[in-house]
């Protein structure tokens, strides 16, 4: 028997000469970006957004870069950004949440109904605050439901959230009988929805703060590592001691909560709900997440990339409107951008793996 002696050396000598990954830069900004690959994806996406803005600026002789227009883009981006950040976590953990758009609508309806009901009996500010909390809690509840169904019943998240997507929008229609909630106090728009803080729209500011916290959670906390570990290898993570089910419920809870907050932002924007106005919102957010460098198969996610990529669709829409191209083309453009982004990413990954 020569079992050990005939063993060939499967480790060629060149493995020690494998190139080391890019140097670890320090500082809070690069820390939020995560791995070097994601860092460059975020960089490319940021360049794409700036390039688009400059092209539209040229085509509109600078009008595109006017403060009101940029503020409008910012307000359009706020809710989408929140959805994208939540989805980045869900995708990073190897799952998907198709229900975030429906959750947004349901939360906006709950938020609006509560605000309207309470604003008769007291100050509007009080009513709006309670309405906002109820909206966020509604989102959290939907997220928790998704997480529990996925982990306890062991049903694929695509199927679970396809179901709750219908439940969410259906509930919104049942509550309102299909007609949008009106009669919200006007201060909800004046003091928040269309208000600015040093020229920055308040809803965008809120979304930015929440999203940056999300970026910190993903890159700097144990929960963030466990999210990506779960998406990378569920069995492996479980055996390494990661509480996979708790992590999975956590990401769905976050996505739902973010969608709930986005639902509240939605009613502050127009002073009413938009029950039938969000059929493609989830797909827009999903596109942004993937363009931003998050893998659809889990293990790799970039909150910052998702945040910046949300501007691609809002810049395209605003630009097309200004140069007189039908906004229908925006959808076509985003579809093309999505496919190109994933293709470019795949080429870069393949190149990185062969060097």
């Amino acid at each position, binding site marked *: 028997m020569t079992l050990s002696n005939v063993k060939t050396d*499967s480790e060629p000598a060149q493995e020690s000469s494998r190139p080391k990954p890019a140097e670890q830069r320090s500082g809070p900004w690069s820390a939020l970006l995560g791995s070097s690959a994601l860092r460059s994806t975020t960089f490319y996406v940021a360049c794409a957004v700036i390039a688009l803005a400059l092209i539209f600026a040229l085509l509109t002789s600078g009008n595109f870069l006017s403060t009101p227009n940029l503020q409008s883009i910012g307000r359009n981006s706020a809710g989408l950004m929140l959805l994208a950040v939540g989805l980045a976590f869900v995708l990073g953990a190897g799952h998907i949440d198709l229900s975030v758009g429906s959750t947004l609508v349901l939360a906006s309806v709950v938020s609006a109904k509560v605000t309207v009901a309470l604003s008769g009996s007291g100050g509007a500010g009080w009513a709006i605050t309670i309405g906002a909390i109820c909206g966020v809690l509604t989102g959290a509840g939907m997220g928790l439901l998704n997480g529990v169904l996925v982990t306890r019943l062991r049903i694929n998240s695509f199927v679970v959230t396809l179901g709750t997507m219908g439940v969410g929008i259906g509930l919104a229609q049942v509550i309102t009988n299909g007609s949008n909630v009106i009669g919200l106090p006007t201060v909800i728009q004046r003091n928040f929805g269309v208000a600015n803080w040093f020229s920055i729209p308040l809803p965008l500011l809120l979304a930015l703060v929440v999203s940056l916290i999300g970026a910190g959670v993903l890159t*700097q906390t144990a929960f963030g590592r466990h999210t*990506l*570990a779960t998406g*990378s290898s569920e069995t*492996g993570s479980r*055996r390494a001691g990661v509480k996979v089910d708790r992590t999975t419920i956590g990401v769905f809870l976050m996505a739902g909560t973010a969608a709930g907050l986005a639902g509240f932002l939605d009613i502050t924007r127009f002073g009413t709900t938009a029950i039938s106005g969000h059929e493609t919102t989830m797909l827009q957010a999903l596109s942004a997440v993937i363009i931003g460098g998050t893998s659809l198969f889990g*293990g790799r996610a970039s909150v910052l990339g998702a945040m910046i990529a949300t501007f691609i669709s809002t810049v395209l829409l605003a630009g097309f409107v200004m140069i007189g191209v039908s906004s229908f083309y925006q959808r076509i453009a985003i579809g093309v951008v999505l496919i190109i982004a994933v293709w470019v990413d795949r080429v870069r990954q393949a190149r990185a793996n062969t060097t």
Partner: protein
Amino acid sequence: MIATDETPLLRARGLKKSFGHLEALREGNLIVNRREVVAIVGDNGAGKSTFISCIAGAIKPDAGEVFLNGNPLELGSIHAAMRAGIATVYQDLAMAPDLSVAENIFLSTEIRRRGIAGRLGLIDHKAMRARASALMDELGITTLGDVTATAGSLSGGQRQVVAVARAVSRAGELIILDEPTAALGAKQSQIVLDTIHAMRERGFGVVLISHDLPRVLDIADRIVVMRFGRVVAEVAPKGQTVRHIVSLMLGEQSAAEESAGS
């Protein structure tokens, strides 16, 4: 039960596990003492991996008990086993390919930052990288370029070495290794075997599953032979030949000889 010098480190008794109609583990009995390397050998499908998975908490056995230092271990809980001081290197290595080597080594045992940041759950990437590098140096692992490389970018052998390093860094009492040298070249195999020796010298109990019988004869203090989900023989490696172990694994011995061996 109070742990005495005679209390074995690990005692597994009557472990059974079926998957549907397949009785993967019919009778799992094992004793491991401190400073002892116990090898489990057997043909493919003999139930070795199921057996150690039951001890490690990755699989909940249908019946049986496990005691560590005389204290009953909660079965079917990886966390209970980890808390009790059992660390395991699984055949699939339990790695997250998208995370770095350092992150994998500290997966679920991340080092928190000091003060309020740590309370908020923030982890200390720098300390994790430093400690992971130090661990590699300590074990004499020099083929690994960088602990910030993702586990997925490593060769099979490198990943295996990282998995062993992680188990070593976590083990409190007992380390279980399922085919730790299967994917390794000569040099890395030697690192793992040296590590096993070192663990024994430090007072750990080691359970080793391996098909590499010459190495098993070389390193183990005791060899447990499994066949068809049962422990069928237990032999001391001294004076044993690979041929005899193989015949035990395949059941070519007479029943009398087997019981004499156990």
